[in-house]
C-alpha cells in the first residue's frame, strides 16, 4: 500500500523505470523479455514494500531486483523454448544496430557488467555487490567483456579504457 512516507507508484516508475528497463534490455537484448522483467520488478516492489534509506539504496535495490528477475526469466524452461520474436527496435543508426547485434553475441554476464560500468557509471566494487561476486571477479569480468567486444567488432582502439 502506498502511504505519505513513500513515493507514489508513478514517481517510482518515472524515477527508476528507465534504469530498470535499460538494464533488463542490456541483459536480455529482447524487448518483450525486458518488458516482462520491467513489470515483474515493479510488482516485486509492491509485494516486498521495501523502505529505502536513501536514493542510493533505492537505486541499488531496483538494479539488484532487475538482475534477479532477469535470472528468473532465463531459468524458466518455457521461456527458453519460445521462438525469438521479430522486434521493432528504436535504433535507426546502423552503427547502433550493429552494436546491438554484437552485444547479443556476448554472454549475459558480460553484457551486465558492461552496462553497469558504461551506463550506470558504477565502480567495480558496487558492480560486484550487485552481481554477487568479489570485486576482483567483477574486474576480471569487465576486462574480459571489453576484450570480447574488441574481438567481436574487430577494431583496435575503440574502447576508452
Amino acid at each position: 500500500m502506498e502511504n505519505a512516507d513513500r513515493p507514489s507508484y508513478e514517481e517510482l516508475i518515472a524515477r527508476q523505470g528507465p534504469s530498470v528497463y535499460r538494464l533488463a534490455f542490456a541483459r536480455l537484448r529482447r524487448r518483450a523479455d525486458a518488458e516482462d522483467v520491467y513489470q515483474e520488478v515493479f510488482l516485486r516492489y509492491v509485494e516486498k514494500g521495501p523502505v529505502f534509506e536513501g536514493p542510493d539504496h533505492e537505486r541499488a535495490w531496483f538494479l539488484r531486483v532487475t538482475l534477479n528477475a532477469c535470472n528468473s526469466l532465463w531459468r524458466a524452461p518455457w521461456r527458453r523454448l519460445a521462438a525469438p520474436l521479430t522486434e521493432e527496435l528504436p535504433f535507426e543508426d546502423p552503427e547502433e544496430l550493429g552494436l546491438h547485434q554484437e552485444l547479443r553475441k556476448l554472454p549475459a554476464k558480460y553484457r551486465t557488467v558492461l552496462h553497469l560500468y558504461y551506463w550506470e557509471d558504477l565502480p567495480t566494487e558496487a558492480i560486484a555487490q550487485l552481481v554477487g561476486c568479489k570485486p576482483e571477479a567483477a574486474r576480471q569480468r569487465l576486462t574480459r567483456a571489453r576484450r570480447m567486444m574488441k574481438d567481436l567488432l574487430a577494431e583496435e582502439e575503440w574502447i576508452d579504457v
Partner: protein
Amino acid sequence: MFKEEYRSMNEKLAPGAELNARTLARMEAPRSRRPRRALTAVLTLLLAACLTLTAAAAVLPGFRGMLFGEASPLAESLTPQTAAAARNGLALEILGTMAQGESFTAYFSLQDLEKADRLSGEMFLDMDIYLDGKRFDHYQGCDFFCEVMKYDEETQTALCRMDLDVGGAPAGEEGEALYRLENADVDLVLHNAFQRDRHSAYTPITLPAPDTAPSVLPIYGRYQFRYEDGEESSFIEEITPDMFAPTWEEICAELEKKEKAAQGGEPASEEYLSFSGILREAFLQDEEGWIAHLEPGEPVPVPGLEDFVQITKTAYVDGVLYVQLHKEDQALLKTCQGQGQRMLADGFQLLCAKKGCGAADAQDIARKKEELAFGGSSQELLNRLYQYSSGVSGFAFDEAGRVIDGPPEDREGYQEYKYEIPLEELDQYEFFALWDYMSQLELGLTAAFSLEDALPGDTVLYGPVTVGGVTFDQISVSPLGVFARGYWLWDDVNQMEDIELVSSGTVYHFYKIEGSQWSVEYADSNGPDREKSSAWVKFFTSSAPIDPTAVTAIRYQGREVPLAPAE
C-alpha cells in the same frame, strides 16, 4: 569510442507510455504472492485455516488434533501415521501423510521433551528421505521442501511439513523411474536443526614457507553457445565440458558454419544447435597481467577448520604472494569446532594483518559485518577486508583434469588470495581466517513408515472448456478443491473470483482463496496466439464436499456448459 556509442544507443531505449500504464495498473491491482508449488500452497492455506480451529484440539491432542480434528479441512486428505523416534530428550512423531501422483507430503512434530529451549519456530532442518531404502537426492532436479509451520512455546513442539516431488528425477539406467512413491516404505531422517542466526569466528593461520619457484597451471574457460535459428543468434552460457575448441576464432567459424546450415532450411524456428568450447588462456589473459593459478601442493590442514579448508600452496609469483586454499563443496559442509557450530561457505575469508593486530582486526571486521546484518557491504568494510590483499580468484578442475577459471564461491575448488607483500617483509604480517557459522543442534532421529495406506489422490481432470468467454485448459477436481489452469490475460485472472460445478444434479459453489493464484511454466507455449498471455493456475474451494467423479457441467460468468473428463 565504445562508451559514447553505448550511451547513445541506450538513450534511445526507454519504457513506453503504454508499458508504464500497464505496469501501473498491475501495481495498483491486488496481487497474490506466488507460492513455490501448487500443492504446497493449497496445504499451506488450508493448514493456516486449520491452525485457528481450537475446537479441533479438544478431540485429539496437540498438532495431531489440529490436523485430524472434526473441523480440519485436511482430515479427509491425510492418512494418519504413528511412527516416532526419541533421542537425547528430543522426540520426532510422524503425524500424517498424503501421496498424490508424484508428490508426497508428510506432517511431523519435533518436540524438546526436556524443555531446554533447543528448538524454535525459526529453525530449519537438515534431513533426508529414503524411499524403499533409496536416498532421495533433491539435487537431481526433484523438488524438496521442508519448513516449520508452527511452534508451540508451551510444549516446545514444532509442527513441520515436508513436501517432495519425484517427477523431476532422471530415469534409471534402464529407463525405469528412479523413485517410486506407490506403497513405498519411507525413512524420514532428521540430522540437524539449524537456527537462522549468524556469527563470525576467528582462527589464526600459520602459513607454510612460501615456494619461490612454483608451477603455474594453464587456464581454460568453458562456454556453451546456442544458435537459435537462421536469422537470429544468441549466446547462452552453460557449462558442459564435452567438447574442445581451441580458439575464439574457431568458435566463431563453427557458429558461422552452423548458421549457414540452418539457413538451408532444416532447423525449425525453436530448434537449437549447440556446442561447447574450451577457450585457452590467450582468451582469458587479463589486461593487467596473466591470470596465474598454481599447481596445488600437499594439503596442510588449518587446525579447527580441517574438514572445510586446507592450505594447498604458499608461493611467490612475480613478487606477489599467493596463498592457495582448497575448499569443500558447500553442499557437503562439515561440522567444525566441535558440536553446536556449522560453518557457512559464503562467509569464509582469509585475511592479513600487521603482526600482533590479527585478533583485534578480526573483532573489528566481525563487528562491521554484524552491523550490516551479514548481508550487505560498505566501502569501509571492503577497505578493511582488502587492506593488504590485491585480489582473490578461484578455479576448479573439470572431469578431464583441465583448470577451469572462475571463483568457486559455493562449490568444491581452489581459492587463491594474493598479497603484494615482499618476501623480506612477510614476517611483519600475520594471517587469519574470519569465518561465519550458525548454531547447530544434532538430532539423529529416524522414523520409518509406509505409504501403503496413504490416500490416493482421487483427482479427476476435466476440460478443456470455454465458458463465459474464458478458456480453461484443465480443471482438476479433488477433495481439496478445484485447480483451474489456462492462458489468461491479467484482467481475466483478476476477475476470476468464483466458479460453479454441477455434480449429480447439485450446483457446488467454489470460491477463490486469498493468495491462491500463481503463474506457471508451460512447456508448450509456442502456439501463435499464446505468446502474449500468461499461463495461470487458480485454486478454488467449496464449503460442501463434491464427488470429483460426477461433475457434469461448469458455470462461469452466468453461462453453463457441459464438462467432460479430459482425454
